[in-house]
């Protein structure tokens, strides 16, 4: 019997597993956290109560969970994914005891979701500053709102979604600083009428934020953070050109999402294993596309394993609709004024936190007459060479390189990050102790 491994228990992974099960194909779904759901349907841990979500969202998650409620779907939670080696072997690490295992399968569906984009500003790497998604993880898992004065800053719909959830949980944010001005695009917003559920959820969040009366600074941006006493001070550049200093206990940043695919191999529909990508890790389009894309990947895997032709058009139509919806959202949230260019950042602003590399370090490296490639910048400047393997600095480094050298082709993310396992650092002791090439059948674990 064919073995399929699915990496990631978010909407795409759950949907792929359910689709495979419907086709009678067994799969093992790996999830790094203790609960399923992914970023959007993240579940409370222990005895915490779930955060309030819309009826549509609750039903969507229930449907996904019903799809995997079959012996054909085996779950391995608290298991992180370390990548796929040159022999097609999947490496995993247990979050509870740190042990490493190597798994073989006929097909693997990578559904590792998205990572947040964070525009660097001076002080983005200070303790107390996190991503908005990071703040949301804690809120959803513990059902306890983060304490203190919390400033949300950046760009995109997640900021108001998080603000609405914080309001419902009992500690509204101090302020939302949003580069776009979504209320200034009524015509574009009208286009969202074609996307009923998305519009209903977005409207709900927006109304919550407007009703709460918390300052929602649109067309504004955060330009720097400093630590003062036991708190943080954020410098805000408002739409009217005014600068304001706001004291906060915590600051959450968010500038959109991108595919969480660093280090992952390219998709391929032959070989062992077959490698497919689903959801945000293939193209960051959000939850609606992720569910459809999980179905697509599940159907494609089933067809490839059985050697028949998959009919994927209907999934592609659904995904195309979400591409259109995301395009509308991007238009609605487009920065109202041009954001300060990365090249205007002060030299001491951190670009690569892991290796402590700054804007000035990159500028100094680029003064040679030849156009250094992304790989040379990585090697000689140590950008994207650290523990996060470029997940938070590679894109910013590439963008700043492009801004500083408009006449040289910009490096790709892959030039800076490479494409190899392990996709995250792993204990040497655990690697040595790993069992080689076990099959998933022997180790069934249900949460």
């Amino acid at each position, binding site marked *: 019997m064919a073995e399929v491994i699915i990496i990631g228990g978010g909407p795409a992974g759950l949907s792929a597993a359910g689709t495979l099960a419907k086709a009678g194909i067994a799969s093992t779904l790996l999830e790094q956290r203790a609960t399923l759901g992914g970023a959007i349907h993240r579940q409370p841990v222990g005895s915490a109560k779930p955060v309030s979500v819309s009826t549509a969202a609750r039903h969507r998650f229930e449907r996904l969970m019903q799809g995997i409620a079959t012996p054909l779907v085996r779950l391995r939670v608290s298991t992180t994914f370390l990548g796929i080696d040159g022999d097609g072997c999947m490496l995993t690490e247990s979050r509870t005891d740190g042990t490493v295992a190597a798994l073989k399968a006929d097909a693997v569906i990578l559904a590792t979701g998205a990572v947040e984009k964070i525009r660097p500003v001076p002080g983005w790497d*200070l303790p107390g500053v996190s991503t908005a998604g990071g703040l949301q993880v804690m809120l959803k898992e513990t059902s306890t709102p983060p304490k203190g004065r919390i400033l949300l800053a950046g760009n995109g719909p997640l900021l108001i979604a998080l603000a609405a959830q914080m309001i419902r949980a009992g500690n509204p944010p101090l302020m939302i600083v949003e580069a776009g001005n979504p209320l200034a695009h009524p015509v574009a917003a009208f286009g969202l009428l074609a996307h009923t559920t998305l519009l209903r959820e977005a409207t709900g969040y927006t109304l919550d934020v407007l009703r709460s009366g918390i300052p929602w600074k649109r067309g504004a941006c955060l330009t720097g953070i400093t630590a003062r006493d036991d708190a943080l001070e954020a410098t805000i550049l408002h739409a009217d050109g005014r600068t304001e200093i706001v004291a906060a206990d915590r600051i959450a940043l968010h500038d959109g999402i991108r595919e969480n695919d660093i280090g992952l191999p390219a998709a391929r529909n032959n070989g062992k294993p077959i490698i497919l990508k689903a959801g945000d890790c293939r193209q960051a389009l959000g939850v609606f596309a992720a569910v459809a894309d999980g179905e697509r990947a599940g159907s494609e895997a089933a067809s490839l394993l059985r050697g028949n032709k998959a009919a994927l058009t209907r999934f592609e139509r659904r995904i195309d609709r979400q591409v259109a919806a995301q395009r509308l959202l991007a238009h609605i949230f487009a920065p109202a004024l041009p954001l300060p260019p990365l090249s205007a950042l002060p030299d001491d602003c951190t670009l690569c936190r892991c290796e402590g590399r700054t804007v000035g370090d990159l500028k100094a490296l680029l003064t040679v007459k030849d156009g250094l490639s992304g790989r040379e910048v990585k090697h000689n400047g140590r950008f994207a060479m650290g523990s996060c393997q470029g997940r938070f600095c590679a894109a910013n480094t590439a963008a700043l390189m492009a801004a500083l050298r408009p006449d040289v082709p910009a490096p790709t993310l892959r030039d800076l990050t490479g494409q190899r396992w392990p996709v995250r650092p792993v204990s040497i002791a655990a690697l040595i102790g790993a069992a080689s090439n076990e099959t998933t059948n022997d180790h069934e674990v249900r949460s």
Partner: protein
Amino acid sequence: MSDNTFLWQGQPIAFTAGESIAAALTAAGIMNFGPDMAGRDTRYFCGIGACQGCLVQVDGRLTESCLTPASAGLQVTNAGGTHG
């Protein structure tokens, strides 16, 4: 030792069942998780194990505090292995 605390740099930190070490430290008001192996401050950031910026040592093993559930009696120290 109480059954719902772990030790952070020798001090007891309360946690609720299932909570990550990072969440428990944050709830206790600890934002700075101390120096990493290169001497740079670590802190909770992405929440999903991607940024490696919240590394701590748990019973001597280096791990992401955002992805590691707290459990009673764990000895958690900063990633750089220094005390204070």
